């Protein structure tokens, strides 16, 4: 039994779905953020697996670019969460409903 690229793709789809569950179900902004990181990681896995299958180094280059964007996103996002927490005293997104119509 040889591990084909389809195995990696299916696993990445599963991890992406679990990340989507986290974003939709959890109310803690930090856990929602971790779920987004999980989704980015699963997409990285598909990039590297497809690049390896096609014999293209661009899959790994794309994964590196995604990591850069994710790192920038984490710093800014966590700074926003800390700023919101200092102002409102909570990181629960249900209570952050000031923009509600």
């Amino acid at each position, binding site marked *: 039994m040889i591990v084909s690229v389809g195995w990696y793709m299916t696993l990445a789809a599963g991890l992406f779905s679990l990340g989507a*569950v986290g974003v939709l*179900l959890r109310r803690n902004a930090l856990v929602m953020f971790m779920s987004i990181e999980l989704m980015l990681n699963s997409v990285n896995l598909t990039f590297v697996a497809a690049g390896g299958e096609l014999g293209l180094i661009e899959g*790994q280059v794309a994964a590196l670019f995604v990591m850069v964007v994710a790192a920038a996103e984490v710093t800014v996002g966590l700074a926003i969460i800390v700023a919101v927490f200092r102002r409102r005293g909570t990181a629960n997104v249900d209570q952050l409903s000031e923009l509600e119509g």
Partner: protein
Amino acid sequence: MFETIVFIVFAVVAMVGAFAMLAARNTVFSAMGLLATMFSIAVFYILLDAHFVAAVQVIVYAGAVMTLFLFVIMLIGVDRIEGRDEEIPFQRPITVVLVVGLFAVIVAAGSSAWVTGWRLFGETDLNGTIETVADALFGTWMIPFLSTVFLLTIAAVGTIALAQFGPGGLHAVDEDDDHEERVS
């Protein structure tokens, strides 16, 4: 055979880690579950001969990003347990149905376009060492690589600017603000 065993073991670890991240009510346990998933993905990169990306995965995600997450968790309180009450009626069943549908659509769309068995340059042995990655990164993808420099600089400046915001706006964080009382 060895590759299959390693893949199955770490696929189980990755899925269990992701489940633990979702189910844990303590945020620190969520971070630990995500850490297990990140390490498993690094193992998959090694299986796929992407050694440099695997090293970066461990350093950036398992190292820097998770440290940042744990730091923020410690900063804004670990003992705040999230309630299970739902604001939107039937949020949980609707989410499960939507996400199962999403998974089915991804797998259906992907299986009609698998790249399996099709190799562009014959039997290429792609070895993701630093040399091969750097050849692509500093050759074809030089301009995107340089633009990430600006992205990271802007993100760092933005983070520092956000850190200046307090309860009363910019530069209004005093030593004796009521942060401690509002936590409780």
